[in-house]
């Protein structure tokens, strides 16, 4: 089924859908126990990655930032968790800018997702560490973040590929 309308409209609609999905996953993620407060797994990043794959970096930025802002507005408020997510997403986007050009030739969705996850987690960790003025916290948990990023990146990357193929098949992408 092809979606009627201009490519721009398609991008807008699909991006919105992706943002909302990301928001939902974001909230579900929050139920997860994690050794430090405010830090999320970052599985919701899969959707922004899909947006990037389908439409480009601008869409990816839109999806991620919308999710963070909506999450703060509707759910968690603008406290520390918000700052964590915000800087996390900014770091992830920066990574995407750097590596996005190499996709899909030199790097796959999984690789980008893992790098993004690391940037995301490191940024969150940095926010928490700064809030408590403790570099030891940062150093102590950094290896944990690296290991976690390996795993969540793998999941996110694979998920984004699936989402992309789903989107393309249903004409949304």
């Amino acid at each position, binding site marked *: 089924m092809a979606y009627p309308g201009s490519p721009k409209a398609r991008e807008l609609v699909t991006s919105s859908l992706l943002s909302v999905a990301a928001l939902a996953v974001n909230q579900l993620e929050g139920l997860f126990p994690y050794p430090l407060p405010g830090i999320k797994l970052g599985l919701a990043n899969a959707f922004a990655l899909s947006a990037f794959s389908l439409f480009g970096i601008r869409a990816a930025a839109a999806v991620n930032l919308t999710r963070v802002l909506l999450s703060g507005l509707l759910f968690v408020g603008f406290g520390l968790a918000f700052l964590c997510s915000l800087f996390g997403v900014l770091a992830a986007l920066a990574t995407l800018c750097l590596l996005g050009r190499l996709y899909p030739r030199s*790097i796959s969705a999984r690789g980008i997702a893992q790098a993004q996850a690391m940037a995301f987690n490191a940024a969150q960790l940095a926010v928490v560490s700064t809030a408590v003025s403790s570099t030891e*916290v940062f150093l102590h948990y950094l290896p944990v973040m690296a290991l976690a990023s390996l795993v969540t990146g793998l999941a996110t990357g694979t998920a984004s590929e699936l989402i992309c193929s789903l989107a393309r098949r249903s004409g949304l992408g």
Partner: protein
Amino acid sequence: MKRLDLVVAALLFALSFPLILREMGDPPRGALRLSVIQGDSRLDLPLREGVSWTRRIEDGTGGYNVLEVDGTRVRIREANCPDLLCVDTGWIDRPGQTIVCLPHRLVVRIEGAEGGLDGVSR
């Protein structure tokens, strides 16, 4: 698997190595200390097996956390911060582990004391 995938994975793996080493060789340490940082003030307290105590830590603006020490493990038993994540963290019992209460700017951390020694022969 593309070329850079390998690079990214390798980098992350390398970064996570300290964790793997830490977990595989859990270091036995001498007497442990507890460092409690609230805002700008810092307290160092000893941890001794068999010695239990609780202490209420206030942040000066009405917020409090109740620190509970049971021998060499530590937890925040109760607090009046909005997220109660510090309480959810539960017990910590090894050097390097921390409990953080951000709303109250509180960091509780176990430190190994005897300068990297496992024991002293006397």
